[in-house]
């Protein structure tokens, strides 16, 4: 009779049924048996210094691998620490499976260590949550958790596993282990709606396709390419859809970033919105009041949110584009595309000059351009911070899916995501350079995870865009209450590179333009987790700050 403990059963299921390669975790007594099981079944446990990083890394893992990320945290503070990352994944629609310790079932209402109602607390930021009460049902609960995370609109799920079922053993033959099932949503729009969409597309003179995270999760870069190439429609891929096709694709306007999209939208006569929510970042769809709208989204409730669509097509983005592309006419829209590029180019004169011109103090646009020059497009870039997210998103380009991510610019606006995302990127793609551009403020949240990087030998290179302040907040305060009344927004010069050195990594401090490239090269060549701390122009304000301020002051 072969016996297995609950914790080992968790690991067995993760490995053998779901093919989980890595679990992001921080140890704790309540989950000890699962951790032991991870070792037993050969699953890599990536142990961090704060559970927030574990949930953020698991979230990032889903973007970099296309598979749900798994996060394992202990009860009580382990759980509450992970909450920010769970909420971030929820607003980002990222498939994340959170396995969490819990006080023992037998001690309910007795004042057990770390006894709290975790389920009620987490409910509003997950798709599904449950507590497993029976060791024999662990695989069944895990199976439900994984399916809930990935089916339809993806999102985080939460499963509590109390020690009463993790530490006891059961006969393995008495456990029913479900087979893995992978279903792709196959809701199909009615033919009339597809025809109506095709008609609008064929009639449009100035159309634009904007793809969001739904393109990324659908893995439908090929379908977007086929559609764009046949119709001649330029496109921008945003959020976690970015990189589904390389930024250098001939129809892509990602070289103009936010400015290109904002310049184009008021001019278009048709917007095809694929897997993208019309939230505040898109000004709730108000920037194109006269345009016709075709929306494709896996969630039917998104079709008319904030802006009524002329045609709504609910379902998986790739599957719908597969149906739609044969129905649209092949068109030459090169003049429109040429006009569009010239128009947004006229708005980017200064930004492009800043990238090309040495500056003192160093302008962040220049810093980004120098990094890109050294590292190139065959790399993964992560950007974190307020203004920093703008500079990095606009300036970096990559040939890879999720090759440029700015998790702080997602709906939660969650800064501090940079180090965890960069670590996950490097674990997922160990042979590619991973560069993190981090604001100095946001570096503080998870900077200690450089210990994780050193301990586990994950050689990311972090460049700190150091303006000695909470830049976006400081500049917004200058606009609102005046420069003389800025409050709680200064940070001062801090040697983050020395902190990384002290943890066993490599550090460089840079103040002059001509030192950026050599310092960066030395950091990469060190082969260690590295920090290049670059002092940049503290007066530089990004367009994102202006939009942020306008949005929050429009009362």
């Amino acid at each position: 009779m072969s016996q297995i403990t609950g914790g080992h059963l968790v690991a067995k299921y993760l490995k053998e049924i779901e093919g989980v390669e890595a679990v992001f975790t921080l140890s704790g007594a309540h989950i000890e048996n699962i951790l032991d099981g991870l070792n037993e079944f050969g699953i890599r446990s990536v142990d961090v210094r704060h559970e927030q990083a574990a949930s953020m890394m698991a979230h990032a893992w889903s973007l970099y691998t296309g598979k749900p990320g798994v996060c394992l945290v202990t009860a009580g503070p382990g759980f509450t620490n992970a909450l920010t990352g769970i909420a971030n994944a929820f607003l980002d629609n990222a498939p994340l499976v959170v396995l969490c310790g819990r006080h023992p079932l037998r001690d309910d209402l007795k004042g057990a260590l770390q006894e709290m109602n975790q389920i009620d607390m987490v409910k509003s930021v997950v798709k599904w949550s449950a507590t497993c009460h029976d060791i024999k049902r662990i695989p069944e609960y895990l199976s439900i958790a994984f399916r809930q995370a990935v089916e339809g609109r993806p999102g985080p799920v939460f499963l509590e596993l109390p020690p009463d079922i993790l530490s006891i053993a059961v006969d393995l033959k008495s456990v029913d282990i479900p087979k893995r099932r992978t279903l792709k949503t196959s809701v199909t729009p009615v033919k009339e709606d597809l025809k109506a969409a095709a008609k609008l597309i064929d009639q449009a003179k100035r159309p634009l396709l904007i793809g969001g995270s739904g393109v990324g999760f659908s893995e439908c870069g090929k379908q977007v390419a086929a559609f764009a190439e046949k119709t001649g429609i330029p496109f921008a891929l945003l959020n976690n859809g970015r990189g589904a096709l390389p930024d250098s694709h001939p129809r892509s306007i990602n070289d103009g970033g936010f400015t290109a999209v904002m310049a184009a939208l008021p001019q278009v006569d048709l917007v095809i919105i694929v897997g993208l929510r019309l939230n505040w970042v898109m000004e709730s769809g108000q920037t194109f009041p006269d345009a016709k709208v075709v929306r494709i989204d896996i969630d039917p409730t998104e079709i008319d949110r904030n802006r009524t669509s002329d045609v709504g097509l609910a379902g998986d983005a790739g599957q719908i584009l597969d149906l739609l592309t044969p129905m649209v006419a092949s068109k030459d829209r090169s003049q429109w595309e040429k006009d569009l590029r010239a128009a947004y180019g006229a708005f980017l004169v200064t930004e492009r000059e800043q990238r090309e011109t040495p500056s003192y103090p160093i302008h962040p646009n220049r810093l980004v351009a120098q990094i890109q020059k050294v590292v190139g497009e065959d790399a993964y870039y992560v950007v974190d911070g307020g203004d920093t997210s703008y500079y990095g998103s606009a300036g970096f380009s990559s040939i890879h899916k999720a090759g440029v991510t700015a998790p702080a610019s997602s709906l939660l606006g969650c800064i501090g995501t940079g180090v965890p995302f960069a670590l996950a990127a490097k674990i997922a793609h160990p042979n590619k350079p991973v560069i993190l551009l981090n604001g100095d403020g946001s570096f503080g949240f998870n900077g200690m995870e450089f210990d994780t990087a050193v301990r586990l030998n994950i050689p990311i290179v972090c460049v700190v865009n150091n303006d000695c302040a909470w830049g976006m907040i400081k500049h917004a305060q200058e606009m609102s209450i005046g420069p003389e009344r800025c409050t709680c927004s200064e940070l001062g010069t801090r040697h983050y590179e020395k902190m990384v050195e002290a943890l066993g990594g490599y550090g460089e401090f840079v103040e002059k333009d001509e030192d950026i490239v050599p310092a960066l090269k030395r950091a990469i060549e060190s082969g260690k987790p590295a920090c290049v701390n670059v002092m940049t122009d503290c007066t530089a304000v990004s367009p994102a700050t202006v939009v942020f301020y306008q949005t929050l002051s429009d009362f």
Partner: protein
Amino acid sequence: MRFSLLLYALYAALRVASKTHKGFRHFIRKARVKILIKTAAGEPARLFIFDQGRISSLPGDHADYDAALVWKDAAAGFSVMTSRKKDAVFNAAARGDLKVLGMSVYAMWFQEAIDQLM
């Protein structure tokens, strides 16, 4: 000369609107923005200063702008700025008749402010 007068007339219209036009007043009430409009040659030129609802203006070229709309020449500037077509500015940029220096997001804000008056 016509372009120079147009810039002055725009300033006068903006000032009046800042006192009388409810929507426009609301739109500009919190902004501190300096917009320069000029030709590539540097003249005619005028700086429009928005300071939390107050509007002032200085003739001539200035370096301390947040965004500058630089027209290829006075004729192009006059023609587009007096056009009522929604896409006139976009088309001018596409043709190369206009470039924007500084923070383009402020140029877009200025365009939105002007749209309030239309």
